[in-house]
């Protein structure tokens, strides 16, 4: 029974309210991710919304048109490209397909029939890259149906064109920027590759620097060095600021080192790819990099301020470890969301969650600046600064009060309330 006694003691020590909350938060993250992915799958199962311009009167374009009508929701069928794009934009459609006048004749002359696709890409998250696959599937169906038609009618078209009668000419309009000869998956892939590491790096920096502040407070309280510090001729504000700035310097060095590795990684990716996003105006300029840097700095400051505030409640080194869990959750939620979703295409609830968590802003900044969304980045910087200022002010207020050393004294009523959770 002595083994059981030790196990009971260990479990009792390890299962703390902090651990339970962190487990619940992690479960919540997975539920949210499941719902997000479920929503995307649901979207794929529905018929894709497209527009259609058919300038060809031939029998093969009729085959294509029939397949498209059977498998998609056509919200525009006319002759004007700009009008078609406007309608699709309004209806939340994915693409405008144009079948040119020489479509059928070209195929019968052993040339491929061209379908011009104008993609409307509203976001560049991994989730946004999934929706166009429904249209890709339509094109595949059209290609197969025309092949079958050619084979069924014993035409004399060569085998190569018979098997692949369709060629594509793509233009993607991504958040208002027109990119010729690039598909949404190519753009999404390149931008994701460039921006995917930032959330991970930010999460690592926040966790490590935040952990440092919390551990430092835990050690100060455990060794009673904090009591000594508080009786020295230095203001409480300077103690809080000193701790935050010290950790921020380490955090920035850390971020700098990680970013250097990331630049090397990016160069390797760019080197292998024959697509240069800079040619399409989808790259960051010097001002953008400065803004990303400011956003990173403000998020680190906000994170450290939050950890300093949490640190005032720390009793010792062990409780400091427990209090890193809320920070972990706050760093992981935006990391997962920004990896999968684009702020612009996220539901309002997700946008609110992303905005109020200050760590989200540098995670989103790079992507936002690629598309010149300066408002989001600047608003994020201002919000993070206000968040840090308010949090530091509360921490300084606690430093000036008795709460820092004696914590909260439980009254009888609070004790009774607390017992409900034991």
């Amino acid at each position, binding site marked *: 029974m002595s083994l059981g006694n030790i196990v009971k003691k260990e479990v009792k020590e390890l299962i703390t309210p902090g651990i339970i909350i962190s487990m619940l938060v992690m479960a919540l993250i997975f539920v949210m991710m499941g719902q997000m992915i479920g929503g995307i799958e649901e979207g794929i199962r529905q018929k894709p919304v497209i527009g259609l311009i058919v300038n060809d009167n031939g029998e093969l374009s009729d085959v294509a048109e029939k397949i498209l009508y059977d498998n998609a929701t056509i919200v525009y069928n006319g002759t004007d490209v700009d009008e078609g794009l406007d309608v699709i934009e309004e209806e939340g459609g994915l693409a405008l397909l144009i079948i040119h006048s020489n479509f059928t004749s070209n195929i019968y002359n052993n040339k491929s029939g061209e379908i011009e696709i104008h993609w409307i890409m509203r976001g560049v998250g991994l989730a946004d890259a999934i929706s166009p696959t429904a249209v890709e599937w339509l094109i595949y169906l059209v290609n197969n149906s025309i092949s079958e038609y050619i084979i069924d009618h014993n035409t004399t078209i060569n085998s190569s064109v018979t098997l692949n009668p369709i060629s594509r000419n793509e233009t993607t309009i991504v958040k208002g920027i027109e990119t010729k000869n690039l598909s949404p998956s190519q753009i999404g892939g390149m931008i994701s590759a460039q921006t995917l590491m930032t959330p991970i790096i930010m999460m690592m920096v926040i966790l490590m620097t935040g952990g440092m502040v919390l551990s430092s407070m835990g050690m100060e309280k455990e*060794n*009673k060095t904090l*009591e*000594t510090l508080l*009786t*020295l*001729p230095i*203001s409480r504000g300077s103690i809080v600021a000193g701790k935050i700035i010290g950790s921020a310097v380490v955090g920035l060095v850390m971020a700098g080192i990680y970013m250097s590795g990331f630049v090397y990684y990016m160069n390797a990716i760019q080197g292998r790819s024959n697509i240069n996003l800079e040619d399409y105006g989808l790259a960051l300029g010097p001002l953008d990099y400065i803004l990303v840097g400011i956003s990173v700095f403000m998020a680190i400051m906000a994170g450290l301020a939050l950890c300093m505030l949490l640190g005032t409640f720390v009793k010792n080194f062990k409780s400091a470890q427990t209090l890193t869990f809320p920070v972990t959750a706050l760093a992981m939620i935006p990391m997962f969301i920004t990896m999968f979703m684009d702020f612009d295409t996220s539901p309002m609830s997700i946008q609110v969650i992303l905005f109020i968590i200050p760590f989200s802003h540098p995670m989103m900044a790079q992507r936002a600046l690629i598309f010149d969304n300066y408002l989001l980045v600047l608003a994020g910087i201002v919000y993070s600064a206000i968040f840090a200022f308010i949090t530091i002010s509360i921490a300084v207020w606690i430093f000036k009060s008795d709460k820092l050393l004696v914590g909260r004294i439980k009254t009888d009523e609070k004790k009774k309330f607390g017992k409900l959770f034991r």
Partner: protein
Amino acid sequence: MVALEVTNLVKTYGPLRAVNNISFTVRESEIFGLIGPNGAGKTTALRIISTLLKITSGTAQVFGFDVASQPKEIRKIISYLPEDAGAYRNLTGREYLKFIATFFKRRKNIDKIIKKGIEIADLKERINDKVETYSKGMARRLLIARALMIEPQLAILDEPTSGLDVINAQEIRGLIKQFAKSTEKDTAVLLSSHNMLEVEFLCDRIALINDGEIVETGRPAQLMKKYKANNIEEVFVKVVR
């Protein structure tokens, strides 16, 4: 001049009355002891005087500065040593003394403060070793040195010999006594202890504190005589009963 004047001091935490209407005075060049069992309110009283805790009611003045309204002035002239305090483990003893001395550089030459600290700590070449390698006695010597090297006008020492063996405890007591009697300008020491025998050796005057209240004040010899006791421990028992 009066070094410390505490008048009707009260500290409550919700319904708990940790310090209940205590009054006492510490004079210059005096070692004054707050003596009582664990949980009597000694540490709370010392923390209030050290500007760490807020006063519920009453007043405390250190060399004429009010604890509630002039904490910044008080922090310049006091030195507080908490019970079981530690030092930053990654620093060497010398670095730790330098770190503390830096806060007082406006008042004195920083090298002079550090030199004095090294002298009081008397850790020989071990002063250059990291604090994490120190024994409990060595760490306590370093902390006493930290508290006294700045020559505070009021040194507030909470259980200065707590947890130390007989030899180390005696050495620390010697350092405190030497400090109180040998500094150029007038200083005072306020200490707490639940070791009632050590205060006979160390303190000029004592206040016996129990359940947050001061139950008796006086010179150890006077109190022993008054209560016909052989030591302060017996005095305390007789007073409390």
